[in-house]
Every structure is written in C-alpha cells, then in structure tokens.
C-alpha cells in the first residue's frame, strides 16, 4: 500500500513541479516581438542603410536575451521579468522607429531616383534633337549613347532596390550628359561671341548695301541658319536650305578640315555639269584666308604638311549630304541659284545672320529651363 501511494505522490509532485516551473512567470511577449522586429529589419536591408543603428539594436537584443536566459535559469518562483520587459519595450520603440525610417527612406529614394532618371532621359532626348541641327555631333552622340546605356543599367538596379549602385549609375549618366553639352558648347561657342556676331552682321549689311547700290546679285550664306538667300538690288528674291561640310560650322583654315569658309568671295567659274549636279566655284582662299592660314601655321596649328585648300563650291546633290566644306543644296534650288549666278557674282558666307530660330535659341531656352 505504501509503495504505490509514494510513487503516485512523487509522480504528481513531479508533474506539478514541471507545470509550475514552465508556466510561472511567463516570458514577456515583448521578447518575441523584438525577435520578429529584428527579422523585419533584416528583410529591409537595414545593414546597408543604417549599419551602426542596427548593430546597436542587435547588441541590446542580445543583452536582453542573455538576461532572459539568466532569469530562466532560476527556479520558477524567483523569476522576475518586469525590468527586462521595460528594456524590451524601449528596444521595440527604437527598432520600430528605425524600421519606419528605413521604409520611408526607401520610398523617398525610389521617388528621387525616378525623378532624377526622368530628368536625365528628358535632357538626353532634347540634346539628341539638337544634334540634328549640326554635323559636328560625333562626340555629342557618343556621350549621349553612353548616358542612355547608363540609364538602362540604372533601371535594372532600381528594380532590385540597389539604391547606392543606382545612384552612382545616375551620377555617371549625368557626367556623360554634361560632356555632351560641353561638346555642343565647343562647337557653338563661337556663335555666342559678340565680336563674331558683329562681324557677320557687318558683312551681311555691307553685301546687301552693295547689291542695292549696284543693282547686282549677291548670294548670302548663313551657316548656322542653314540657308542661302539670293539678293538682287538689295531685295531678297529667294531663300533655300543648304548643307555644309562635316565640320561646316567651323571657319575653314586648311585643306582637309572639312570646314566651310567664312568671308566675302566671288564666283570664278560656273560648271553646268559636275559630280554634284551644277556647281559654282568661289575664290577661296581670299586674302583674309591666306593671312589666317599663315598665322595659324606660325602657331603650329596646321597639321603636318596640309595646305590652305581650295575647290570650294556652291553645288547641287542635296542639302543633307556631308560635303568636304562646300555649300550643298537640292538640285532644284541649285537651278535657281545657278541662273542668277555670273562669274564675279558676290558670295558672302557668315556664321549666322541671327541666332533667333536656331539651335542657339534652343540652347539658351534649354539652359534657362534646365
């Protein structure tokens, strides 16, 4: 009788002991919440955004766990979690703030990214349109192509929320866009030079005045505006679109530079049939051209043994072809120009008569609006 009672009693005591030891007092729920908060933080990539804050959080989480373990090591009746619960509540508050901060940061980063990328795309498109206005666009297009490739890479990075790498990609894209803008500026800076503009205006006015006084014909070529105007007795009787040399916006200096010369010239020969339909040869180089060439050679600006060049014509064959420095136009327009031309007819070639309605006006507007 005694043995079964003792065994049962011990068994009951043991079960009571086990139950009591496990159930009282409970570990605060804040502990579990802190662990889940830790996982949420990790999923947001907190180590990339706020590594020091996260290290601090993890350190204090570990301290809390150690304290829990120390309490659990005690007999159930002696466990006390009140101060630990308070610690975890503070930790939850700080961790929650950190999580919210990172989430807001990511949302704003995404928006900032997309805004920066959109602005860059717009700038690239507008610059590409500008390149249609002049031939010397090789360096511009090269930089714009690299900018577009960078933007494509940034798109991939944005999808993966890799903001640091994406930000660097956008910075690279902006670098290429600035390089393209500089390349445009290098080509067109001369056209914003007031002295050059004043010189061209003076040549234009002198040519028109002479045409009026003598009742003669003058062909006025404006390179930036891409047009030739026929003046007869000081009155414009026809305007046609033209093409230029590969580096036509530059002032011709030597043979092979593929630039279109600027100055006052005369027609010296008419060709009713040439490689480029009808053609009118002008007397490039004139005396000013020879002086400029000599000065450039003295400064070492002429490559190798290059001469001053020649054979500059007004000819047909189309306005969109790239010439070696000649002024090209459509055959039908060339017919009209040819009809007005005589040996000795004045041909004045200027950089620009006016920058309104040209790419320069576009650039000025672009710079103002950003």
């Amino acid at each position, binding site marked *: 009788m005694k*043995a079964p009672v003792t*065994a049962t009693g*011990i*068994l009951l005591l*043991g*079960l009571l*002991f*086990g*139950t009591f*030891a*496990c*159930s009282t007092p409970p*570990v605060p*729920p804040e502990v*579990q919440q802190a*662990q*889940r908060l830790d*996982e949420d933080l*990790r*999923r947001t990539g907190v180590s990339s955004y706020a590594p020091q804050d996260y290290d601090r959080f993890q350190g204090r989480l570990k301290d809390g*766990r150690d304290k829990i*373990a120390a309490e*659990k090591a005690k007999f159930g009746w002696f466990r006390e979690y009140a101060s630990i619960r308070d610690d975890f509540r503070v930790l939850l508050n700080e961790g929650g703030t950190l999580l919210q901060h990172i989430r807001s940061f990511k949302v704003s980063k995404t928006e900032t990214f997309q805004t920066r990328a959109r602005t860059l795309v717009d700038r690239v498109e507008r610059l590409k349109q500008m*390149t*249609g206005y002049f*031939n010397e*666009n*090789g*360096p*511009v*297009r*090269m*930089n*714009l*192509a*690299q900018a*577009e*490739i*960078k933007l*494509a*890479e940034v798109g*991939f*990075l944005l999808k993966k929320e890799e903001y640091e*790498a994406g930000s660097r990609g956008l910075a690279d894209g902006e670098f290429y866009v600035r390089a393209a803008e500089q390349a445009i500026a290098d080509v067109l800076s001369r056209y914003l030079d007031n002295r050059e503009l004043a010189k061209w205006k003076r040549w234009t006015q002198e040519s028109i005045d002479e045409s009026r006084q003598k009742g003669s014909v003058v062909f006025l070529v404006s390179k930036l505006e891409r047009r030739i105007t026929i003046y007869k007795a000081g009155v414009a009787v026809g305007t046609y679109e033209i*093409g230029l040399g*590969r580096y036509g916006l530059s002032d011709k200096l030597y043979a092979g530079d593929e630039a279109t010369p600027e100055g006052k010239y005369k027609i010296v020969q008419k060709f009713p049939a040439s490689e480029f339909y009808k053609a009118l040869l002008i007397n490039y180089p004139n005396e000013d051209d020879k002086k400029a060439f000599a000065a450039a050679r003295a400064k070492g600006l002429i490559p190798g043994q290059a001469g001053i060049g020649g054979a500059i014509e007004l000819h047909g064959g*189309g306005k*969109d*072809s*790239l010439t070696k420095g000649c002024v090209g136009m459509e055959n039908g327009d060339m017919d009209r120009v040819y009809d007005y031309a005589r040996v000795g007819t004045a041909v004045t070639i200027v950089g620009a008569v006016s920058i309104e309605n040209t790419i320069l006006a576009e650039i000025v507007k672009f710079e103002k609006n950003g």
Partner: protein
Amino acid sequence: MKGIKKHVVLVLAIAVALIACKQPTEQINNAKAAIESATKAGADKYAVDESKKLDADLKVAMDEVATQDKKFFKKFGPAKEMLAKIQTDADALKAALPAKVEAAKNLAVSLQGEARKGLDAAKALLDKAPKGKGTAKDLEALKGDLAGAETAFADIQKAIDVQDYIAAQDKAKSVSAAAAKVAEQVQAAIDKVKGVKK
C-alpha cells in the same frame, strides 16, 4: 524492479515537461546564423529566390514559436523541426553558391558575347549603308551612337574582372539594346535611300 521503473518514468515525465516548455532558442540562433552566413557568401545576390524563401520559411517558423509561446501546454517540436530544416537549407544553399557564382559568370560572359555580336552587326550595317540623299547626316550621328556603345562595352569586362557578374550582365544587356537600336535606325536609313515604304 517495478519501483525503479516507475521512478524512471517519473523522471522522464518531469524532464519532458521541462524540456518541452523551453523555447527553441538554440535552434532559432542556429537557423539565423546559417542564413546570415549564406547571405555573406553572396546568396542575396546569386540565389535571390532561394534567399527570399529562407527568409519566408524563418518567418513561418517564428510565427509558430510565437503561437506556441502563448499556450499553457507548449509544443515547440514542429517549430524546432522547421528551424532545423531552415538551417540545413541555408547550409546547403551556401555550399551551392560557388556553382551559382560560376553560372552567373558564365551568363555574364555569354551576354558579353551577344553584345559584341550586336555591335559588330550594327557596325557592318553602318559600313555598307549607302550615304544617299537625306541619310548622310543620320548615318554620321549613328556612328557617334555606336562609338558610345563600344566605349560602354569595355565596362562589361571590367565588371567581370572584379567578379561583379550581375552588374556585368546588366551592362551587357544595356549595350546589346543600344546596338540593336543603332542597327534598327541604320536599316531605316537604308530603307529611306531605297525608297522602301513601310
């Protein structure tokens, strides 16, 4: 003998009661450490889907732990099994990473080759394009575009050299797209010269 057996049963009962109550802290820490180790080895870059699955599985396991923690008679057995599996999976993922990195490298090299072919095809098209009426300027502009793409192509190898294979893949895809765009525009210019109407 019977008395000893009963005592053993009693001790076992107490032990089970004690052990079953304890949170699987060790298993939780082991699972998290295994995931962390796999992440540091590059799992989040080269095994994105598997990495996300591990995170999701851990969340499920922790939810189970939390659920059991609220009960009077706690059963952490299933949660422990989940956590043990997570640890195993994370370790296996880490072990599999070298092969995945190699696969990423091979893909980067393959995409680099495609980008090269794209650039060469665009260049060949540009070289033979007739510079006829209305196209000379366009073709010159496209030469500039192709030159830009060629410069960007060099960056692919740089990324491969520093073992940033995902970046190399992205760069190669971007260059291929640029080369294809140039080829498309050259073809449009050629069609314009031939007077082909679309």
